[in-house]
């Protein structure tokens, strides 16, 4: 009886708050791929990179893809999401959200109060226009997200925005190397299946899950609408 009552009160409260504010996804890590635009490997790799970046600098950079903006503009949704999650450390407000809404075709870099001086509106806009949108327009969402996040980290680290118009050559070299590695690995696996399994499970599951659980989530930072948006 009491439990049911408590549940009722909880639901009532939940409905009341859900009505007042948009519904926000759960902050599960440094990459929240609500719209499923990233492959599992890319999401994990990016998550790992952003986690290490936070360990080194205490700056929180979160990549989030949204399946819906719920009728709000991305500017309106962005700062509220940042505040709701409390991205950035309390008092330092050193958080940044990289938001992609593929269904509305909108993208935004939302910068916390404390990072506005480094990641300015102009550089945020440069990253979006020069790095993110060209990839989105050509249909490579994943690369746009990964390269955009990388550019954000570089700018926060004191570097300028480097817009590379064509590094297709590098990427073909990379994929050829990847293919060779894969063939070598498969031939190795055919001879020693047990060792290959151990290698796979160790790098895939062991590493990432222990990393994910040690993260404390948002640090209580706040946002004031700085950053830039774009659409494609």
């Amino acid at each position, binding site marked *: 009886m009491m439990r049911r009552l408590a549940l009722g009160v909880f639901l009532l409260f939940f409905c009341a708050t859900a009505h007042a504010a948009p519904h926000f996804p759960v902050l599960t890590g440094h990459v929240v791929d609500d719209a499923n635009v990233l492959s599992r490997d890319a999401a994990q790799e990016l998550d790992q990179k952003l986690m290490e970046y936070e360990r080194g600098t205490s700056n929180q950079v979160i990549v989030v893809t949204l399946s819906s903006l719920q009728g709000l503009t991305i500017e309106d949704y962005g700062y509220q999401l940042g505040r709701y999650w409390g991205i950035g450390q309390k008092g330092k407000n050193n958080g940044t959200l990289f938001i992609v809404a593929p269904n509305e075709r909108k993208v935004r870099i939302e910068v916390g109060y404390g990072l506005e001086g480094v990641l300015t*509106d*102009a550089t945020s*806009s440069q990253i979006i226009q020069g790095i993110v949108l060209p990839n989105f327009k050509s249909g490579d969402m994943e690369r746009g997200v990964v390269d955009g996040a990388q550019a954000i980290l570089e700018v926060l680290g004191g570097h300028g925005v480097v817009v590379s118009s064509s590094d297709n050559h590098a990427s073909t070299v990379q994929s050829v190397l990847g293919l060779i590695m894969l063939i070598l690995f498969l031939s190795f696996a055919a001879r020693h299946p047990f060792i290959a399994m151990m290698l796979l499970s160790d790098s895939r599951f062991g590493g990432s899950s222990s990393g994910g659980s040690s993260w404390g989530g948002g640090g209580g930072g706040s946002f*004031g*609408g*700085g*950053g*830039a948006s774009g659409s494609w």
Partner: protein
Amino acid sequence: MSARTWIILAIVAVVIFAIGGINTIPRLEEGVNASWAQVQNEYQRRSDLIPNLVETVKGYANFEKQTLTDVINARASATKVTITPENLSDPEAMKKFEAAQGQLSSALSHLMAVSERYPDLKANQNFIALQSQLEGTENRIAVARRDYIAAVQDYNVRVRTFPGVLWAHIYGAQPKQSFTATEGAATPPAVKF
């Protein structure tokens, strides 16, 4: 008065004290003042961008003189109108502030609309950077305004309802002015040629 009346009065006083909280109104007022300071900061930030913007645009041959003059004049009159925390209850002061900043908003959005007609200007790196800074600042203004509206609402509800109204009477606290313009007013008006 009998001892019993005193006891009842004391209990009533304690209850009001407990519910109302003697510190609530000053605390909420501080919230209003802080969010107002943020609003003025963001408007100041916009104002600071304008000289650079005007300088950049001026370099383009036969750019509409009138548009630039409007922006310069609107900026000059907007910087004259500021509101100190003590005047936040004054509806006239707020109206003046809104009018001055609104004028500047529309002059600026007209400037940005006109600049669409100058392809060279639109390709200028300096102009592109200024444009994104201006967009970011307009967005910050919108956020700061919304925060201010929320802070004023918290404060005014407390000042106008029991038991806060009793404390408000003691402090002489007045309801604060909120923004009257709707959010739609912040979006640039459509310019037809």
